[in-house]
């Protein structure tokens, strides 16, 4: 027999080893093309429109960005929008972490049912959820009726059209996005770690703060990321629950595009929002990588 075949031609072996990987790479081609066509191309178009000088698309230049930067109103709209995201993240995290821990402690039989309840808000249309919140937060709504019935307040408190009401509603609406990554990370934690911690003399609180929570951080960071990006851009909830007193970026973009037909400025606002959200998300991501390293080390 030929020696090359007996021992295996290294070139052939290499080709065999590499070829499947190359072909696997090809499998991402449809998705890559899809993204190129339906995401990157429109995004490029948007960036292009934002560089038009007038709403009639005359000339090229950074005038729209100068207009944005030159008006304090625009900055405060952006600031309030990002702050809304932060507040929603804080509330969902504060409620989400204990809920996640409870979920892990729940009997295994109950977990699928609990998971269903957690996902439930995602299964109803955002419009329905938002209008339901009008019924709850309204002047004669559920919350005010309960508060007045209990004698906590004598006159109805205004929740609709306020930032507080909006944060409450968004926290419920976005909660699954916090809980799902959190639970998926928590459920992968080795239960032996807790026993080991106990065996080494740590109390339950100490185990929670020194073992469970640090190891759950990657999930928490992923949750924060999703909730932030989603609540900052939640147009329907923001406009209907927030009302006219709150001008936030998504509404501002919509108004410029469809009421005032100033597409270049609308595109500029979109780019500014996109970059701001990306900046926050990138920071959170970097934080996530560090926490994962922490969890692994």
């Amino acid at each position: 027999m030929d020696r090359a075949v007996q021992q295996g031609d290294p070139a052939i072996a290499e080709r065999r080893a590499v070829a499947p990987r190359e072909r696997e790479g090809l499998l991402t081609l449809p998705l890559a093309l899809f993204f190129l066509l339906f995401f990157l191309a429109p995004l490029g178009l948007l960036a292009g429109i934002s560089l038009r000088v007038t709403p009639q698309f005359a000339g090229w230049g950074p005038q729209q960005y100068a207009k944005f930067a030159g008006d304090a109103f625009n900055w405060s709209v952006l600031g309030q929008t990002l702050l809304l995201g932060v507040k929603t993240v804080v509330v969902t995290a504060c409620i989400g972490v204990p809920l996640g821990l409870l979920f892990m402690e729940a009997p295994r039989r109950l977990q699928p049912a609990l998971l269903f309840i957690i996902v439930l808000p995602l299964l109803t249309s955002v419009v329905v959820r938002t209008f339901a919140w009008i019924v709850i937060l309204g002047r004669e709504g559920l919350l005010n009726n309960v508060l007045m019935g209990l004698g906590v307040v004598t006159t109805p408190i205004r929740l609709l059209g306020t930032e507080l009401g909006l944060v409450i509603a968004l926290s419920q609406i976005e909660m699954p996005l916090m809980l799902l990554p959190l639970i998926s990370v928590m459920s992968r934690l080795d239960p032996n770690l807790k026993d080991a911690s106990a065996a080494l003399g740590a109390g339950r609180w100490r185990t929670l703060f020194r073992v469970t929570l640090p190891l759950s951080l990657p999930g928490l960071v992923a949750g924060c990321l999703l909730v932030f990006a989603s609540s900052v851009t939640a147009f329907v909830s923001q406009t209907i629950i927030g009302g006219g007193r709150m001008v936030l970026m998504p509404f501002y973009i919509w108004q410029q595009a469809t009421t005032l037909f100033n597409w270049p400025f609308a595109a500029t606002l979109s780019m500014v929002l996109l970059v701001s959200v990306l900046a926050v998300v990138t920071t959170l991501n970097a934080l996530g990588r560090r926490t994962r390293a922490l969890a692994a080390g």
Partner: protein
Amino acid sequence: MSTPLLSRRALLAGGSVLATTMLLPRHALAAGRVVTPAYPGPWEEAYRAVVLPAVKKTADVDTVITPLLALDQVAKVKASRATPPLDIFMLDPGPAVVAIEDGLVDKFDPARCKNIANLQKTFYDDWGVAVAAQIVGIAYNPKKVDRPKGWKDLFDPKYNGKVGISGFGTTFGTSSLIEISKQYGGSLTNVDPAFEQLKKWLPNVAVIAQNPVAVNTLFQQGQMDVTYTNYQTVSTLKGRGVDIEFVKPDSGPIAFYTTLHVVKNAANKDNAYKFIDTVLSTEVQAALQKPPYSLLSVNKNVPLQPDMPVDIVKSHAELASFIHHDWTKINPNRAAWIERFNKEIRQ
């Protein structure tokens, strides 16, 4: 190897069947179709219930109704001028001026609608035709508050925390704010006095709505007891059992006409004319005018009585005497007003 849940062949077969059904032309079954917008809410309901079957019967045309507000329609067509997603525009006077000036509207040929003979000459022009009149005034909840008399009453301390307002984004919002401004020395193009009033009185406003659909929901939920709106909205809510009444302001109610237009480069122009002709017919106009739709007829053969309450409007002649705003004068100011409203109303 374990047997997969779906074999590759089954998956491909199923997939291709699905793909084929998606590729099949959806209007394959009908003689033709027309894509028309309708304002979300009462208008959409009325057009679905009355116009859609009528168009099918008289012209054998299938109607696809897309619920869209006026400016949203203009934006959609503007984004795709060569192949517009709509065959027809349904517009209020302000957006109509915008669409016509932007070259999105086809010239209107009255000769292609035989029912045009039933309309006064003032109801159509080179660009479109009126299909319903709307009246703007004040709505209030008779169970909770006294009947307001005019625009100035909105600022009466007895309505503190009960008045809801909306901005210059809608026709009725813009018209109402102009009339409010007139009460304090302003004019059609000067709304400064309205802004001054609003600013002073902002802490007492119950709610500021950002779109007309939200106004209806907020009223229904008791979030506001007084607001400005269209008569037809009041009629619809009343039909659903909401405690709501309409008041013609003592300085005079506002009237305007909602118009239909053929979209330039529309795919189904012939059907668009057939659709418009059907809407103008005596039977359809009569049906649309019945409560709860209350879309005031423009057809001579359909008198406003007895469908409309006598104290709201008796006849077309009375309707013509209401306040009509010239939107060619309003439009150039509207962008600045909207931006100013954003800034001054924001907390």
